[in-house]
């Protein structure tokens, strides 16, 4: 116990160095994404257009069961989905026989402040889906979105339903009619003029501002408790290495394009236009009832970033007859890196997708007698 007083300052200083390094990365243009840690699962970049690099992870089985496009969030870097062996969403899906594609978003620069939902959804994400269709030889793509990526994936599916075979949403921030996260009370008080001021002053919403908001959500945890946890679990095998990688991800905040920041905070968060089917993307009003493919919504029961109530009504608002909602006992990040999630949740996700995915060879051949109809 006395060694705590010796180790805590060291842990805290290491954390301060990580934070400063994250600040440096966030202020660097272009963002130095080559400084990401090495991935667990090997991949190749099959396309790079707009603000998106499309990664391809080959299925590990000799008879692949399908293809999945993971739509990652526009906040922080995507290596949280492939952090360590045994706690990697990408690895789990690849080992279950899926060809996995991942949107590796290129952080915006000052020249990209104009980018909003239209550019990311109808531009970059549409291009990603098209590349997957060409690469995998399929007409419809299964999408899996995480957090903000789930929001993008659901917008895309509502606008282009004919290209999506299945939609899996992980902790989707959908309904902001009741704002249970205490910090969001402050966000709700920011007038449009202040939101515009962020854009006019910085162009994009800077990475340090995003990090400050996340830190303010749990200042005691980020300032003290996580280091106490490191001390208490110092003897646990692999804990320190995992902690280091996880903290690198926590400090990998990237800027959010100015127009997108305005649309997310004012239209989605403050006005709750998405849940009311009144959000306009490009020239089209987004209607969630246009989502008619099978939908699987995963909610983190102890999520303190996207409150469970925010995700619960999503499957009720879509037009699909085949929907499922799972509330898993984990937090916002626990659903992707938790040991329990990889033991119980991700095999279930793989099974759900497998039963609703037509392999490419069957898609382009004659319909077989066991064809699934949605």
């Amino acid at each position, binding site marked *: *116990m006395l060694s705590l007083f010796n180790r805590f300052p060291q842990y805290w200083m290491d954390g301060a160095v990580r934070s400063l390094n994250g600040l440096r990365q966030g202020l660097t243009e272009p963002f130095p994404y080559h400084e990401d840690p090495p991935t667990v699962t090997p991949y190749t970049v099959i396309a790079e257009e707009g603000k998106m690099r499309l990664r391809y992870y080959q299925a590990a089985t000799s008879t692949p069961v399908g293809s999945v496009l993971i739509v990652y969030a526009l906040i922080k870097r995507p290596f949280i989905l492939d952090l360590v062996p045994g706690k990697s969403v990408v690895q789990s899906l690849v080992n279950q026989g899926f060809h996995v594609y991942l949107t590796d978003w290129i952080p915006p*620069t*000052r*020249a990209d402040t104009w980018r909003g939902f239209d550019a990311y959804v109808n531009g970059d994400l549409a291009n990603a889906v098209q590349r997957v269709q060409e690469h995998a030889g399929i007409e419809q793509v299964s999408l899996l979105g995480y957090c903000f990526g789930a929001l993008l994936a659901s917008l895309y599916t509502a606008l282009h339903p004919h290209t999506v075979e299945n939609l899996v949403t992980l902790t989707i921030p959908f309904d902001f009619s009741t704002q249970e996260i*205490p*910090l969001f*009370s*402050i966000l*709700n*008080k*920011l*007038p449009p*003029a*202040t939101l515009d*001021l*962020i854009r*006019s*002053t*910085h162009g994009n919403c800077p990475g340090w501002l995003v990090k400050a908001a996340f830190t303010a959500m*749990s*200042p*005691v*945890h980020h300032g*003290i*408790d996580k280091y*106490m946890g490191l001390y*208490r679990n110092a003897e646990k095998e692999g804990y320190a290495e995992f902690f280091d990688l996880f903290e690198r991800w926590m400090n990998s905040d990237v800027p959010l394009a100015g127009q997108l920041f305005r649309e997310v905070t004012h239209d989605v968060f403050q006005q709750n236009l998405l849940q009311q089917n009144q959000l306009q993307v490009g020239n089209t009003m987004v209607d969630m009832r246009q989502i008619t493919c099978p939908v699987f919504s995963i909610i983190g029961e102890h999520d303190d970033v996207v409150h469970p109530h925010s995700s619960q009504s999503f499957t009720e608002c879509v037009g699909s007859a085949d929907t499922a909602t799972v509330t898993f006992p984990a937090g916002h990040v626990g659903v992707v890196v938790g040991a329990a999630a990889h033991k119980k949740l991700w095999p279930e996700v793989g099974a759900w997708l497998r039963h609703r995915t037509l392999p490419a060879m069957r898609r382009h051949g004659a319909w077989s007698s066991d064809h699934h109809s949605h």
Partner: protein
Amino acid sequence: MATPAKHAMADVMTMWTATFLEVPTVTTQWSWGMGQQRDVEAAMWKGYDAWVRVAKTAIDRVYENPVFGDVAAVALDRTLRWQQWQQTIASTIVATIVPLTGLPTAAMVDAVHAEVQSLHARLSEQTTQLQALRAERHIESVEQMRTQDRPRLAAVRTLQTPAIAAARNEHQTGAMS
């Protein structure tokens, strides 16, 4: 079902009893040889965990206070306006001085960066085309060589075979002797 307020009160009680009751008790027992160090540590961590929950709850209550929200929103607005004013002053001074020093502005650097990216993309595209052309030419030349050289190679093979056989025989004869 317990309300958040009841949870908070329970955590405060846990923190108080752990700090002022349990820790002194187990520490005294341990110092007299009647307890173990791990009991002391367990009591201290119990108090610490309760303190963390109490602190989090207190901070959440502050966030939910409308007065705090108003103050934070105004503070952010003022900070941003001050940053904007700073940037305007700085860019005005820089715009005046930069032509004298010959240093580039951010806009100039951005423009050069965009041009370099464009050149890089064009170079990659042309490299890919060149590699494709080279591959095509290599295949053509291999095919041409096979077609033209086939009779000559066959002739060489025919000529060599008796010579090689003769050399082999000579070698074997020499080895036996």
